[in-house]
């Protein structure tokens, strides 16, 4: 078991290194940081630009492989290099990673818990009003891309705020800058900012998980061990939550690793549209500003996150399924 785990971790490490290197090579050859300095008035002398780009390890006249080696050498010491403006990528991303993690954690928890509960309830009341309604709604939600959903939410909220006459929901940023007040005021302000991005991020997850969980739950509900549990005198509620839901959760947990990648992309859109200064927003900006080092660092984090999700789903699997622990 330990050998298997070690091999797996080693494989993950190799995958991350290769993925990040590929992303760096692609970004370094496709993006053109030199264009940031062109078209200035007065024009900057080419020698100055060259010196500046070399200093940032972004000079396209240095061979690609040599730039890669310099960058990889820095990465071995935990240094992701410099941004196009000369700041440290590490400092910039360290500031932003908290924002992204907060958003993604709330979105993930709200989305998966709501989705699983809706799906399980729909399965228990199969062909009831709730079941039909939730199936239809999740079908429509799955057809709405995050970018459209976020914009629809903003439009709806502006309309709602106008109708109520006060700013109930806020659509830009993580918190009101320079807000005075105690802990409670700050908390309310943060919540006002948080609600919309969370909805926009988690609604798709709710739809996916509720459909998935409904099917799994239906499979389990007809199984013999549920009937046995009830025959032995367990109340229906206990049988459903302790035995049926737990078993039906296993495939959903496996599915979690697959949805995580799309969740990261969804976070990118949500951050950009709602003006949260997280990693996703920086990703879109760094491509527009030809910021090679930042792009490579973010793709490294993305690869790490996807593999951590895969690992987490393995662990949850072991927790839920005794056969995995024993075997």
């Amino acid at each position, binding site marked *: 078991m330990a050998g298997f785990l070690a091999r797996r971790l080693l494989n993950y490490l190799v995958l991350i290194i290769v*993925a990040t290197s590929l992303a760096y090579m692609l970004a370094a050859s496709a993006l053109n940081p030199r264009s940031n300095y062109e078209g200035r008035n007065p024009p900057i002398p080419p020698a100055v630009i060259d010196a500046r780009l070399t200093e940032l390890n972004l000079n396209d006249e240095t061979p690609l492989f040599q730039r890669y080696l310099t960058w990889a050498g820095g990465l071995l010491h935990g240094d992701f290099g410099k941004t196009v403006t000369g700041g440290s990528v590490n400092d910039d991303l360290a500031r932003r990673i908290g924002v992204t993690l907060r958003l993604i954690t709330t979105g993930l928890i709200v989305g998966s818990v709501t989705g699983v509960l809706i799906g399980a309830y729909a399965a228990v009341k199969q062909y009831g009003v709730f079941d039909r309604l939730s199936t239809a709604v999740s079908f429509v939600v799955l057809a709405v*891309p995050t970018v459209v959903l976020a914009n629809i939410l903003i439009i709806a909220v502006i309309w709602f705020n106008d109708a109520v006459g006060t700013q109930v929901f806020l659509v830009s940023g993580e918190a009101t800058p320079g807000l005075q007040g105690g802990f409670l005021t700050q908390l309310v302000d943060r919540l006002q900012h948080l609600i919309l991005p969370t909805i926009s991020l988690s609604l798709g997850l709710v739809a996916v998980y509720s459909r998935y969980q409904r099917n799994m739950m239906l499979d389990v509900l007809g199984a013999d061990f549920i009937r046995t549990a009830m025959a032995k005198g367990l109340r229906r509620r206990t049988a459903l939550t302790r035995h049926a839901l737990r078993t039906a959760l296993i495939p959903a947990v496996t599915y979690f690793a697959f949805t995580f990648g799309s969740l990261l992309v969804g976070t990118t859109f949500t951050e950009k549209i709602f003006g949260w200064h997280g990693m996703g927003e920086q990703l879109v900006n760094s491509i527009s500003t030809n910021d090679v080092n930042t792009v490579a660092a973010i793709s490294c984090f993305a690869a790490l996150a996807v593999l951590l999700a895969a690992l987490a789903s393995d662990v949850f699997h072991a927790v839920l399924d005794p056969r995995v622990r024993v075997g």
Partner: protein
Amino acid sequence: MTISDEELAEQQSAIGRIQAPSRLRVVAGRFFGSLQGRIGFALLGLIFLLAFVGPYIGRWTYTDQDFTAFLQPPSLAHWWGTLQTGADVYAVTLRGLQKSLIVGLLAAVIGTTLAAVVGAFAGYFTGWADRSLTWVTDLMLVLPAFLILAIMSPLFESGQWLLFVLVLAVFLWMVTSKIVRSMTISLKEREFIQAARFMGVPPVKIIFRHIIPNMSSLLVVDATLNVSAAILTETSLSYFGFGIQPPDVSLGSLIADGARTAIYAPWTFWFCSGLLIVMVLAVNLVGDSLRDAFDPTAQRGRENR
């Protein structure tokens, strides 16, 4: 006892009249038997009609700009209103719809083909071929697709949208290929494959003649669902300016422009967003009903309980 010639002829003609139910007919019957399938098919048909016939009915083309009408609400001259540039919303939206449909369909077909070939080869040849192909699949799953596509966006300028479709397809095949691989491993042990192998049919021929056709139902369903995935990726990329490049338009770039003026000029946002949602919904409905039509046992077994 003998039967007369007449009776024999009658019986033979009766046999001739009985048609063996072809698989296509059975599947089509089940597909159109479900309400979901009928609605999806009708919606998709309407979308296609709108995208490819609609532009000939309108009075404007997507490159036209009406300098007498900026940001005007829908009227007789401009059925769906105009944008800030004076472009006709009806014309540009249909152009974007066309583009999204073509990109989505092409990317899905290429992606699913790739998935079938890679998955079948990995499953058929075990050993190092399987290991290396599986490793590449894992690597592609780890690479952030949106980021790679966005980085490559400068290459898609000046009408290189076919290249964009190819790159989009390259990021669509991984999950399907994993399913195909595991199906191939079990299919490989079946008698007809074994027979072909013992008769000396070369492996590549077995894969293309026997293995891939045997998974056609999975592949058709998957290709359909990939269409909506490709359309969603394309519109999201175009929304941020990384997809279809101007002067061409896509639903994504239209939605991005429309979102800025949506509050006081709702027609710039709702027509393109609405059509996008209806299109993806229709594709998903068709894909879902196709899956049920190809494999009714899975669904029925569940519902009988």
